C-alpha cells in the first residue's frame, strides 16, 4: 500500500516516467505497425521462417537440457554445501549474465575451436563444435545457464533443510532424499529457471553467431535469421515476421512467470 504522502505523485516525475513508458512501447508499436498482416500467415509458414524456428527450438531445448544437467547440481551445491570458494564460483557462474555475448563466443572459439587442445581431442571423436548446430546450442547454453542456476539456488535457499532432515530420520539415504524430497520441492524454481534459461537461449545472438556463424538450417537461429534478412538481404518483411515470433514467445514466457516475477513486486 502506498501511504497518503506518496499518493499524490510529484508532477515533475510524471513527464520522464511517461517518456520511459513510451521508450519501451514506441519501438514495439513500430514493429507491430510494420507487420503486413495480410501476408503474415504465408510468411509464417515459409521455408525460411520454419527452418529458423525449428533450428531455434532445437538449439534452445538442447541448451536448456545442458543447463539442467550441469546447472541443477551446481545450484544444489551452492545452496546446500560448504563448498570451498563458493563465492568465487557463484561470481564466475554469474559472469555470463553481464559479459558481452560476443566475448563469450570468442572465448568458446579460443577454448573449443578446431585448433585448440580440446577441439583436437573432440575432433578425434568426430565432434566439431564451431559452426555446427551443437556449437550453437553450446553457445546458447553458455549465456543462458546462469539464469537457471541463480533462480534455482534462490529457490533452494528459501527452504531450509528441514524436509531433508525429516526424510533422513525416516530412513531415506542421501540420493533418495535428493530425488524424492529436494527436487520435487524445488520443482517450481526449476521450472521458472528453465523457462528463463530457455527464453534467453532462444534470443541468443552474439555468442552464437561468433562461435557458430550463421548457416541457414545449421546455425542460423531465429534472431540471427532476423538480423541476416534485415541487414543482408534487406528483406524487412521477413525480419519483422521473425521478430514478431520472438516477441510473442517473450510475452508468453512473461505471462507464464508473471506470478513469480511480477507478483513479487505487487
Amino acid at each position, binding site marked *: 500500500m502506498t501511504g497518503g504522502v506518496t499518493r499524490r505523485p510529484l508532477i515533475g516525475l510524471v513527464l520522464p516516467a511517461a517518456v520511459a513508458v513510451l521508450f519501451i512501447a514506441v519501438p514495439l508499436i513500430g514493429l507491430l505497425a510494420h507487420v503486413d498482416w495480410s501476408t503474415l500467415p504465408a510468411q509464417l509458414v515459409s521455408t525460411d521462417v520454419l527452418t529458423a524456428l525449428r533450428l531455434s527450438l532445437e538449439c534452445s531445448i538442447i541448451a536448456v537440457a545442458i543447463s539442467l544437467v550441469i546447472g541443477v547440481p551446481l545450484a544444489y551445491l551452492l545452496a546446500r554445501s560448504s563448498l570451498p570458494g563458493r563465492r568465487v564460483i557463484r561470481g564466475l557462474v554469474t559472469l555470463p549474465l553481464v559479459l558481452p555475448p560476443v566475448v563469450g563466443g570468442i572465448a568458446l572459439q579460443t577454448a573449443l575451436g578446431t585448433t585448440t587442445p580440446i577441439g583436437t581431442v573432440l575432433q578425434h571423436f568426430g565432434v566439431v563444435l564451431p559452426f555446427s548446430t551443437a556449437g550453437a546450442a553450446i553457445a546458447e547454453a553458455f549465456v543462458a545457464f546462469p539464469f537457471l542456476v541463480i533462480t534455482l539456488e534462490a529457490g533452494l535457499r528459501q527452504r531450509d533443510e528441514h524436509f531433508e532432515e525429516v526424510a533422513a530420520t525416516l*530412513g531415506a539415504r542421501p540420493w533418495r532424499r535428493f530425488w524424492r524430497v529436494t527436487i520435487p520441492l524445488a520443482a517450481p524454481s526449476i521450472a521458472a529457471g528453465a523457462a528463463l534459461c530457455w527464453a534467453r537461449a532462444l534470443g541468443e545472438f552474439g555468442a552464437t553467431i561468433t562461435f557458430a556463424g550463421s548457416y541457414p538450417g545449421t546455425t542460423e537461429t531465429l534472431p540471427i535469421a532476423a538480423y541476416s534478412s534485415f541487414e543482408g538481404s534487406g528483406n524487412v518483411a521477413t525480419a519483422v515476421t521473425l521478430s514478431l515470433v520472438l516477441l510473442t514467445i517473450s510475452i508468453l514466457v512473461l505471462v507464464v512467470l508473471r506470478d513469480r516475477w511480477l507478483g513479487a513486486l505487487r
Partner: protein
Amino acid sequence: MTLRARVSTHLGTLHLDCDVVANAGVTVAVLGPNGAGKTTLLRVIAGLVPVGEGHVEVDGVVFDDSATGAHMTPEARRVGFVFQDHGLFPHLSVLDNVAFGLRARGLERRVANARAHVWLERVELGAYASSRPSALSGGQAQRAALARVLVTDPQALLLDEPLAAVDASGRLALRRALREHLGGFPGVRLLITHDPLEAASLAERVVVLEDGRVTQEGSFTDVTSRPRSPWIATMAGLNLLRGSVGGTSFTIDGGSTLVVATDVTGPALATIHPRAVALYRTAPEGSPRNVFKLGVAGIDPEGDRWRIRLAGTIPLVAEVTPAAAAALRLAEGGDVFAVVKATEVDVYSI
C-alpha cells in the same frame, strides 16, 4: 531396551551437558523452559546434531561415541522423530507420507501402502489417504506424522513438543491419540515439552532440563511436589526456598530464618504452598512463630484465587480470595504481615 544419551555439546550460547536414560515401555518427558536444550538433545539422539563429547546408544547399539569416533547416520538409526511442526512432505499425499519410511527401507509400494493404510485408520485418518497434508488440521497432521513414524516400527520414539503447534480444538483428540499410541508402543518413548500439563498427562517419568543440565528427575508428582529449581516450583505454583536446616530452624540463603518441623539437617529445599501463607493487616495476636512483615510487589487476579507476590526478607507468593484481598485493603507497594505455620513448610534435603 534402554536409551542412554550422554551429551556435551555447544550450540550457539547453549551448553548442553546432560546424561539421560530412558527405559522401554515408560514414557519419559523431558520438561524444561524454552531454550534449555531439549530439542537439541532429541536432535543429537536422532543424529541430526553432532554429540560433541559423549555417547548415545539404544538397546546396546552405539549411535555415537566421541571416544571411538563412532557415528551412525540419521537414516541408519531406527528412531522415529515426530517434529513440532509435523514435517509432512507438502508434495506427497498423506498416504505417501506415511508410506515414505517403509519405501525408504526398500519395501515394495503395494506392501508399504497397505501398511500405511492400516496406520492411517488407527489414527482415524483413513478418509484423508489421498489428500495433501495442507488439507489436514494441525492436530490431524500431527496424528499423520505419528502414524508415519510408528509404521516403521522404530526402537525409540522421539516427540518434540507434539502439541505445541496445535490449536486448542485439535489438542484433545491429539492428546488422546498420543496417549493411546504411546501406551501401545513397546520401545523407548522420549517426549519433549515445556508444558507441565502435557508431561503430567502423557509421561510416567519426568526429566527436568534447564540451561542444558538435568536439574531433577522422577515421577511427575515427585518433581512438582518437591521441586529442586525455581522454574519447576513456579510451574507447580509453589514457593521454593533454598537454605539449610539446624534443628527446627531453616536458614534461607540470604539470612532470614523459618521455624520448621523436620528431621532433615544440612542443606535443604523448602516448599510452601501459596494457600498456606496467611496474610494480616496488623501483626497477629498469639505466638505464631513465622511472621514476616513484607511488601506487596504485585497482585495477579486469577479467577477466585488471587496470587499476591510479596517481597522483603523472604520472597513469597500468597493465595487469597478476592474478598480477603479487599478486606486486607491490599495494594501494590503496601505492607502486610505473612504468617506460615511450621507444619506447612515441606523440607527436603538437596
